């Protein structure tokens, strides 16, 4: 049986350790909220930052409740426990509501609804069946973990191709965090026969947090995760300025491909000659419009985007490389018929893997 308040010597270890965990959770959460607000101010789409801010924030709040209930206000421990569970639950509702509201299909709020039902069950259990509150919480936690792992898998999948090592590190950090959190429960303390498992759990959470912070920081920008929505146009031209292919990704006024291709190539040639530079033009920034350039052997690729993300630069390079490879025989003896390049659409779709929005 687990006894509270936590007695020495574990008390001296657990309070500072769990305060450090609260600090790290709240710090990471504040960082994401700050990034979210900053992006919002700059009118940049920023979905992931808000989601992550919520997740880390509610875990921090839940830990504060547990520290209070387990160490200082043990007479009212169930109140603090339910406060912690409710914090996680409300966080889950906010998080999944935000994630699911971005989905296009009908009946999309499945997880949100599930978390609402769990919240209702928590309240009923607290008032009418308090003895099984922790059992209900453990079941709910299992659901929440599954939801979170699915979400993180989707996130990791999006950056897997470009940041493989970081993705592994990030996912490992998340697993450590969730496993450590399981080590904090009364069930784990009872099964393993002492508070040492909670100390271990806390250490594992801290390691997980360090991994998450380290690898999240190493990914150039979280904005990279939403790169698909930031593409406006894809343009391919010859080095002489003849337009080969233009694709419009957003519902906006179509571009005059001949004018655009000619003009942008002209700019590139001008810059190169006037700047006495061997360097090629990389980016032209005009407020929220960024033109990314990549010059291949015989073709110039141009992306009109909202943010000059590393992923987009990489994909543009890939597009030019694959285009030149695919049309190598045609490009050498091209007579001016752009109809030949219509299949480029499939190449663009496969590289950018996006549906038009």
């Amino acid at each position, binding site marked *: 049986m687990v006894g509270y308040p936590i007695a020495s010597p574990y008390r*001296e270890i657990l309070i500072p350790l769990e305060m450090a965990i609260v600090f790290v959770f709240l710090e990471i959460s504040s960082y994401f909220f700050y990034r979210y607000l900053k992006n919002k101010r700059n009118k940049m789409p920023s979905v992931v930052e808000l989601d992550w801010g919520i997740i880390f924030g509610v875990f921090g709040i839940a830990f504060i409740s547990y520290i209070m209930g387990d160490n200082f206000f043990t007479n009212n421990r169930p109140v603090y426990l339910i406060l912690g569970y409710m914090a996680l639950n409300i966080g889950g509702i906010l998080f999944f509501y935000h994630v699911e509201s971005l989905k296009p299909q009908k009946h999309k709020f499945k997880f949100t609804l599930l978390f609402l039902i769990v919240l209702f069950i928590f309240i009923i259990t607290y008032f009418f069946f308090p003895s099984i509150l922790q059992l209900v919480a453990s079941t709910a936690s299992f659901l929440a973990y599954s939801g979170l792992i699915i979400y993180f898998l989707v996130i990791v999948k999006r950056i897997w191709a470009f940041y493989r090592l970081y993705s592994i590190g990030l996912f490992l950090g998340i697993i450590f965090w969730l496993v450590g959190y399981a080590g904090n429960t009364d069930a784990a303390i009872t099964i393993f026969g002492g508070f040492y498992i909670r100390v271990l759990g806390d250490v594992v959470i801290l390691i997980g947090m360090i991994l998450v912070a380290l690898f999240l920081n190493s990914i150039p920008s979280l904005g990279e995760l939403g790169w698909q929505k930031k593409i406006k146009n894809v343009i391919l031209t010859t080095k002489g300025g003849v337009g080969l292919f233009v694709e419009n990704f957003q519902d906006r006024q179509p*571009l005059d491909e001949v004018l655009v291709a000619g003009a942008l190539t002209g700019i590139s040639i001008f810059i190169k000659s006037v700047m*006495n530079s061997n360097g090629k033009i990389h980016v032209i920034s005009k407020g929220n419009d960024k033109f990314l350039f990549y010059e291949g052997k015989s073709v110039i690729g141009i992306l009109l985007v909202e943010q000059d993300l590393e992923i987009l630069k990489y994909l543009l390079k890939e597009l030019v490389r694959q285009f030149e490879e695919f049309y190598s025989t045609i490009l050498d003896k091209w007579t001016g018929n752009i109809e030949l390049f219509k299949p480029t659409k499939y190449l663009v779709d496969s590289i950018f893997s996006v549906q038009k929005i």
Partner: protein
Amino acid sequence: MDLYYIDSPLKNVFIGFDYIIAIFILQIGLLFMRKWYKEAEKQSKNFIILGFSAYFILFSIGLFVVFFTMNYVLPGQEFNLLFTVSVFLRGLAGFVLAFALERTHQTIFRTRYFISLCLIGLLAAVPFILDSPFLYTILNMINFILLALPVGFTVYFIMNNFGVIRQKLIITIPGFLLLGFGLYLTTPRILDIIEAMAFSSQLILSSKFLTILGMVLILDGFSGFSFFLETQWQENMISLCIIDKTRMKSVYYKNFKGETGESNEIFAGGITGIETVIKQFTSSNEEIDVINLGSKLIILSHGEKIIVALVTKKNLPNARHILKELTRKFEFFFWDYLKYYESYNSILTQSEIFKPMEMLIRNLIKA
């Protein structure tokens, strides 16, 4: 036996806060280390950043050791050893930063490694005076140098920066002061005084919050810009061209490297041409702000009648601030000249009209 904290039910919470403070300082050090490492990868090493990084990392480890010693170790040989180690680590933190500053900025500080040598002298004395009343005097001197060094350099750095960077750096000064004050309140002698007061727990808790607030200010002040690049923003500037929008021609050109660069007339025509072309097929009314050429960038600032183009190696907030200032001042002083440019042809050569710009630029960038 608890040497450090007064008997309070919140004792473990205070210890928790101490570790949070040490972790926070460690994080700041690691952030500086990351910046240094990223720049070192590009073959541009900055000793100051490394110094700041080592300062915060060693300082935090020193704090970890001192907190651990004060809370868990009984007085005796072990206590003395750990206490001396903690003083050494903190002193070493100060020494590394002092050495980095004195070595890199010899012409500014003119201290000829005096501060570094002082710190070595003070540290060498510590093991011999552990039981002497002089110990606290020496410790206070080390702590004072530890605080004065980053504050002093940040003040110097503030004076040489502009706009957002300056504002951010100003925030770090109260941050350092709060950090120093908060840590001073946790020393055993001050805690003895606090113990005798009413609301002692609340006072200690407040001192922890003040320290954390100080660190938040330091972290905020040093983040969001490249400390490394901003310390040498002038060196990144290559050339400056002021373009008359209406006539699409260059009215002023300066090469900061003393080289013959791009033809300024073609350059001016090209930039205005690019502006016109890009505007035609983008929906927004915003102006082009940056043209990135990989190793070089053209940063543009738009006035009513002019475009100021700066060719630089990095797009830095300080450089953008200078551009805005130049645009505003040029239009203020030379508005009439711009209006009746052709008519001045007979009186002065056009290049002479804008000669006073030299002084203006010199004052702005102190080049």
